[in-house]
C-alpha cells in the first residue's frame, strides 16, 4: 500500500479556517490528507499541541493564521511567527525533519492558497515518508503502554 501522509492542520478561526471553507465551497480540489483543528487564533496553538500531534502519529503539522497585521486579536500571529521557528529548531533536535512543521498565512479570501499549501505539503511529506518516533513503539491500542520496551 502506498504511503498516505497524515497531516494535522491548526487553522485560525478568523482567516485560515474561513479560507479552507472557501476552498470547499469553491470546489477547489486539494489533497484530503490534512485533518483540520480549528483554533481561535494561531497564537493559541500551544507548542505542546504540535509535539502531541507528532506523538500521536501525525507525519506533519501545519499551522495557518492570518497575514501579519491582520490578526483579529492584533498580536496573536506575532507570537506564532516566533514560536514556530523556535519549535522547528526543537523538533530538529528531537530528530524530526523541520520540514514536517510549517507555518503559513492564509486569509479568508485565499481558498486557492489553502489548497496550494495543502497539496504542496502533502507532496513534501510523501517524499519524506512516514515519521518514526520512539514514542510510537510504546503506544498500543491508543494507550501509552507501560511496556518493558527499552
Amino acid at each position, binding site marked *: 500500500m502506498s504511503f498516505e501522509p497524515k497531516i494535522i492542520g491548526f487553522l485560525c478561526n478568523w482567516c485560515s479556517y474561513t479560507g479552507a471553507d472557501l476552498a470547499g465551497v469553491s470546489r477547489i480540489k486539494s489533497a484530503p490528507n490534512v485533518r483540520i483543528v480549528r483554533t481561535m487564533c494561531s497564537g493559541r496553538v500551544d*507548542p505542546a499541541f504540535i*509535539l502531541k500531534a507528532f506523538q500521536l502519529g501525525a507525519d506533519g503539522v501545519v499551522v495557518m493564521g492570518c497575514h501579519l497585521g491582520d490578526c483579529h486579536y492584533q498580536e496573536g500571529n506575532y*507570537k506564532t511567527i516566533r*514560536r514556530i521557528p*523556535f519549535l522547528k529548531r526543537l523538533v530538529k533536535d528531537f530528530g524530526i525533519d523541520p520540514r514536517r512543521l510549517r507555518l503559513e498565512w492564509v486569509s479568508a479570501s485565499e481558498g486557492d492558497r489553502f489548497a496550494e499549501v495543502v497539496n504542496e505539503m502533502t507532496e513534501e511529506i510523501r517524499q519524506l515518508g512516514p515519521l518514526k518516533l520512539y514514542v510510537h513503539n510504546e503506544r498500543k491500542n491508543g494507550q501509552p503502554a*507501560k511496556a518493558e520496551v*527499552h
Partner: protein
Amino acid sequence: MAKPKLALYWAASCGGCEIAVLDIQEKILDVAAAFDIVFWPVALDFKYDDVRKMADKSVDLCLFNGSIRNSENAEIAHLLRAKSKILVAFGSCALEGGIPGLSNLTTKEATLRWVYKESPSTVVQNGGVIPQTHTKMPEGETEIPELWDTVKALDQVIDVDYYIPGCPPQPNQIWSVIEYVLSGKPLPPAGSVLGAGTKTCCEECSRHRKEKKIKKFYRPFEIETDPNECLLDQGIVCMGPATRDGCGALCPKANVPCRGCYGPPPNVTDQGAKMVSALCSVIDAHEPEEIEKILDQIADPMGTFYRFSLAHSILRRVEKS
C-alpha cells in the same frame, strides 16, 4: 503497636536526594524514632534478599529516588512496588527522568563509547573494553545489570502513588510530607504532587517584574545582573515561568536563573514546550530574520528547557537516525 516501616532507595541518581533527607537535620532522629527503617542502601546494610523476604505490602512508606536506566533499577522498582503500601517518586529523576534523562538525547552505544573510549579524561584500558552483561572469568561467569537505551521516569515503569519534586526536594518540604504521613490524616488522592505548590516559581520569586520585552539573550557569565529585577527581563533564560513552585525560588535569590528542577506546574505535560511558548511571547521582534538572530542567542535549548524533564516529556527521547 509496631512502628510503621520506611524504605528508601536510589536508582539512577547522584545521591543528592539521600543527602536532602539528611538535610532535615536533627529531625532525622524523629524519623528514626517514628519509623522502622527497613531498607536504605546508602546508609544501612540491608541486602536485596532482605527485601525479597518481606511480605507484600509490608512497607508503609517507600521513598524512591533516581530514574530507571538499567535492569537492576527496574527489578528493584518492581520489587519495592510489590512490598510497599505507599510508593513515592522522590526527586526530579524519579519524577521525570532528571539529569540522567538527558542521555535520551543520544544512544546507549554512543554513551558507552564516550565514557569508555572517547572522553578526554578517559584512560583507555584493556584496549577499550566496554562492560558486558556477562563475562567469563576463570572462577566462573560474572553478571552486571544491563544498561537500557532509554532512561525512564519511575511512573513509566511501575505505578507511583505520590510525587515529591525537586533536585533535590527541599528539606522543609520533605519534612512536611513525613510529618503529614505521621499525623495519620487522610492522604491526598493518589497521583498528587506533595511537598510543592500549585503555581510557578515566579510566584515565590521576590524580584521585580515588568512587562517583558526581550531583545537579546545573555548567558549568565556575559552580564552583571541587577539583583532586584527579574532575570528574564534582563535577558537571562530563567525556567521560572514553566516550573512548579515549592522551593522558595532559591536559585533566583542567589542570582542564578531557575533551572526547572521542580518540574512542570499542574496541567502542563511538557515543560520545554511551555517554555518555548512563554519565551516566544516576550521576544521583542517582528521580522523573521531578527527573530532568528535572537533565537540563535539561546544556548542549548534542549539541555536548558528539558534539563530535568526530557524522559517524561511528550516525545521522551531523540529519534535515532
